[in-house]
């Protein structure tokens, strides 16, 4: 089986660590800065960063149509932290959720928690929340996979999964392994 080719949006933010985790999980990672970088991808990660910066970068590079085409072709997308916001209804609309930015507070309110993410990892996983968003509302067909402080922090609709936290910042590679498998060709 050939390694799935998985793109990581590299406009701004924590894309490098995603790339490293993907390699470790057996994927062939690609940094995505321009529409052509999405050609032939089996999956796409929208990483954390500043959502205002990332949204602007997507617009400036004309990336939205290519990302939507990737999604419409039924290929997988994983959004983490700011990537959850970018994937939501207010921006790319890949998943029918609205989000609240910096919902848990400023940098000083950042925290870690051991949580269960239903259907993705067995048992608990350490989740790092940095100026993290939460899901404010979900449309029909959106499953909530995890909640923290009574707010959804992991959701899935079809091939799109969105997480409030940063799975790339811990050595635990289970979420990336799951994603690589789900993109398998």
């Amino acid at each position: 089986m050939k390694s799935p080719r998985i793109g990581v949006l590299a406009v701004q933010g924590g894309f490098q660590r995603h790339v490293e985790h993907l390699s470790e999980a057996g994927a062939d990672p690609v940094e995505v800065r321009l529409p052509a970088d999405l050609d032939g991808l089996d999956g796409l990660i929208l990483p954390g960063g500043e959502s205002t910066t990332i949204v602007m970068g997507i617009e400036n590079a004309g990336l939205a149509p290519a990302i939507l085409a990737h999604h419409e072709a039924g290929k997988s997308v994983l959004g983490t932290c700011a990537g959850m916001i970018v994937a939501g209804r207010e921006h790319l609309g890949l998943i029918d959720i609205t989000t609240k930015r910096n919902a848990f507070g400023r940098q000083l309110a950042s925290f870690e928690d051991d949580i269960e993410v239903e259907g993705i990892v067995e048992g608990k996983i350490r989740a790092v929340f940095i100026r993290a968003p939460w899901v404010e509302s979900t449309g029909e067909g959106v499953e909530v996979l995890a909640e923290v402080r009574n707010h959804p922090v992991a959701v899935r609709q079809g091939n799109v999964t969105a997480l409030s936290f940063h799975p790339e910042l811990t050595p635990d590679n289970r979420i990336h392994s799951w994603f690589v498998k789900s993109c398998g060709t």
Partner: protein
Amino acid sequence: MLKGGVIMDVVDADQAKIAEDAGACAVMALERVPADIRKDGGVARMSNPKMIKEIQDAVSIPVMAKVRIGHFVEAQVLQSLSIDFIDESEVLTPADETNHVDKFEFDAPFVCGATNLGEALRRIGEGAAMIRSKGEAGTGNVVEAVRHMREIVGGIKRLTTLSPTELPTAAKDLQAPLELVREVANSGWLPVPVFCAGGIATPADAALMMQLGAEGNFVGSGIFKSDDPERRAKAIVEATTHFNDADRIAAASEQLGEAMPGIEMAALGEEGRLAGRGW
């Protein structure tokens, strides 16, 4: 999550908004940009909390602010304002000529300037969560930032070529904690992000620093001391993202108006250099 982004110096809420709208990943709130600190002279201190709060209210991106080297009470004040990052900065007048702030005492993360690997590791050893080159702030001249980035990145590369037996001596020469030296020799990078600061004035400057290994850029006087801050801010963000794409850097560099005037290092003299502050 500031990596790959541009952090811009701003002196009020209006500038902060312009920075955010141009794609800045954070703003640095300060009363005067470094170019004006140079011009005005006198003692440069932490900004007025009122101004910092106005900026925090104006934007949704992280807000940073500077404290004088060693001034741990200014840092306590910033932390009480829930600042997102504290910059212990040589741009302000040092409060302690011997000791830097013990950054482990704080919950707020710190960014600190460095001119070489040893200095970077000493700051990390004191608890810094992010390193930036010092460069020479307020000059619009990138030459010192280039020197510092090359020193830091070159120093890291050298460590990776040493055998474990040689690392204690390397740590002694670097005047840096041995544990950190071992960690860097193993991983080939610092345990914290490394950004560039001090002299970036054009999109090409920003991309140059990224190609030299910076993980993002701080731009101070370069934006709001130029002819068209809005457009220049956007162009520098674009060049930081697409730092390997000369066509896009060229396109971003058109129609920017005049960059800030800039100062030759020789014209500063030793006295005028800020990078020598701290150790």
